């Protein structure tokens, strides 16, 4: 098994041993140091115009997500409307970046967001477990792209990663990437199942080397989902990858980010790790559902000077 279409951090011939050597060379991570760093960044004080700018950017970065067994076309159409126009009373509020749905609902999301800037993303690869044969995962991806998905959120095979079958993980990402054709590929590491920050960093490098456009923390179905320490480690991996290859990979924390305050902390870690070039929805997304209304409430508060009841914001 050899491949040639990977990125320049790897040798021409990619096998599990070469991938193991590559991953061993990834700098180790000191968990205590990571936690201290994010704790220090969390004490940054963001006020007034800098807060307003952050809230606006957060709206534009949100991947509004509905991933439930009980999702229906009706639910997806409602969420799409919210994604396009988050606050019907305030046209200055931008649309969110994307809406994320299950494969069977992609067509409804595509119709409901037509003509807007909102992208449609579908989870694939037998989300959330990823426990299926590779050809089925590829097929599923091809189908959602055919149905009109602009973006694909795939999961890695954590079982294969943890048992050291790095080539399997790598190859699967590469094949899904091919199946994406032009669609944007976000690779979910499910960091809550990887156990250590060293694994998070290695899985990040593996996913980027295999062709990920974005690396994403979590499915939202496993606890812990996104955390600041995990996000910092992934952003540092992105920085190293960018320095080595010149390729700018995006990052998406998902799951558990519910308040504006939390989201601003992620922006702080982003801003101080990768800098302003990453402060755009092209390179950073936040996977969330309830976060959006909290951000809208904060914006309304900044603009009017008083808090509004949650009843003034639509629940979709």
């Amino acid at each position, binding site marked *: 098994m050899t491949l040639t279409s990977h990125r320049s951090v790897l040798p021409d011939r990619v096998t599990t041993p070469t991938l193991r050597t590559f991953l061993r060379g990834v*700098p*180790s*991570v*000191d968990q*205590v*140091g*990571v936690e*201290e*760093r994010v704790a220090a960044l969390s*004490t*940054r*004080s*963001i*006020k*007034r*115009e*800098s*807060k307003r*700018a*952050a809230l606006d*950017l957060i709206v*534009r970065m949100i991947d509004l997500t509905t991933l439930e067994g009980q999702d229906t076309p009706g639910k997806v159409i409602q969420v799409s409307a919210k994604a*396009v*126009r988050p606050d019907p009373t305030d*046209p200055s509020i*931008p*649309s969110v*970046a994307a809406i994320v749905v299950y494969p069977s609902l992609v067509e409804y999301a595509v119709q409901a967001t*037509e*003509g*807007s*800037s909102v992208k449609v993303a579908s989870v694939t690869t037998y989300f959330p477990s990823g426990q299926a044969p590779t050809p089925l995962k590829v097929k599923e991806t091809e189908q959602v792209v055919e149905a009109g998905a602009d973006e694909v959120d795939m999961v890695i095979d954590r079982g294969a990663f943890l048992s050291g079958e790095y080539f399997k993980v790598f190859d699967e990402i590469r094949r899904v990437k091919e199946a994406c054709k032009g669609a944007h590929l976000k690779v979910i590491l499910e960091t809550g199942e990887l156990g250590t920050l060293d694994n998070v960093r290695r899985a990040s490098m593996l996913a980027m080397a295999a062709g990920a456009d974005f690396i994403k923390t979590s499915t939202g179905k496993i606890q812990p989902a996104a955390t600041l320490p995990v996000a910092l480690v992934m952003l*540092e991996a992105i920085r190293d990858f960018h*320095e080595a290859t010149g390729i700018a990979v995006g990052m998406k924390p998902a799951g558990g980010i519910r308040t504006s305050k939390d989201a601003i902390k992620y*922006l702080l870690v982003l*801003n*101080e790790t990768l*800098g*302003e*070039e*990453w*402060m*755009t*929805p*092209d390179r950073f997304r936040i996977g969330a559902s309830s976060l959006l209304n909290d951000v809208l409430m904060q914006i309304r508060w900044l603009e009017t000077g008083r808090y509004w009841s949650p009843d003034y914001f639509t629940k979709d």
Partner: protein
Amino acid sequence: MTRLPATSHEPLLWDYAESRESTEIVEIGDEYGLFIDGAMRAPQSGDYFPTINPATEETLASVAEAGEADVDLAVTAARRAFDGEWGSMPPQERAKLIFRVARMVQERSRELAVLETLDGGKPIKESRDVDLPLVAAHFFYYAGWADKLEYAFPGLQPKALGVAGQVIPWNFPLLMLAWKVAPALAAGNTVVLKPAETTPLSALAFAELTTEAGLPPGVLNVLTGAGETGALVVSHPDVDKVAFTGSTQVGKLIQAELAGSSKRLTLELGGKAAHVIFEDAPLDQAIEGVINGIFFNQGHVCCAGSRLLVEESIHDRFVDKLKRRLSTLRVGDPMDKNTDVGAINSKDQLDKINELVDSGVSEGAEMFQPDCVLPERGFFFRPTLFTGVSQSHRIAQEEIFGPVLSIMTFRTPEEAVEKANNTPYGLSAGVWTTKGSRILWMADRLKAGVVWANTYNKFDPSSPFGGYKESGFGREGGRHGLLAYVDWNGR
């Protein structure tokens, strides 16, 4: 459906809005006397000097300069308290009073933090999150020992020494006060304290707080002034114990002065700590450790990791990462909650830093400074890196006591140890590697009082701190810290 403008993909240049801590919580008087025998008194000397805010160069207050007669009054008051109420107080009562001081420090920590930053120039973030919590922690820790001295030194029948004369520096004014005053009081001594000339205000505020806490008059006396006042305190014949933190140069003078006397002495002096980074280190966390090691408190830290020893195989990559990180440091108004590097403590210190940095450039080291805008007024200095530094350069040998890092390389662990120890100082060192056995191997060989592994500048009241060689002797913190303030078996 309403059409909205397409999402803008322009990156956001995110400037944090100014977020200044309010100074309203602090009331600074126009003029301060000396704190002697439980009250503020005008100096016998009649002399005053201004104390300024180094970030604005504005005068904050006029402070008394204690002369010989004032020192005599303070030492007499301390002796009276030692022979009287304080000396005969049951240890449990003494503990209770020190606990009360600790709680009051916590209650007033915001006020004291603001005062510390105004007078000293350190970022409010640090005085709020590091200095004040540690000050309270030291008093809590030593309060616990006050009635357990027999257990601290079993069988040694520990007793208080008497009057302690303490001279402290300007880099951590209240924290150095706590390191010295807390163990002295816990062991039953009384204190005459001389805070640094440039940072007297927090010690005076603390002195007033101890009166409110109910500390008997004379137990703590605070004499403000410059070096001459310190010399008078140290050489006063009725002082039993001298504790000094400051420069090695002054420490040597004090030791010479005390030669032949029965006064006990502890010295915590300068340092030129080696920060050793091995190839297998967690690099991004090591970068944070190095940044914290040298730019914490503008590098005004005796244990600052001012000599970086990087394994040659990762030198270029590490220096690139370091330069990138340096450019994200926020330098400026210390009262802004987002400031990482504040003001240099005084004009004198700024001149000294400039002089040594100039020597680094003229001796041929390569200088890097980030492109940050410094405030127009006040004493500020850009965070600075030097690469291509040799052991023989002045910037590799002399303590700069500013935000300046000298970077050197090594090839083997033996060479790292040899270079790290090749200094007259020996206060602290740092080691970064993921190999546990190598940490222990290094710690055995590094001649430094403190060795941090995969972290830096960590302090805890239960952990002793102090130096080897010309970094001084005696330990502060922990049970070791009490030892400097007790007599045992009549010794």
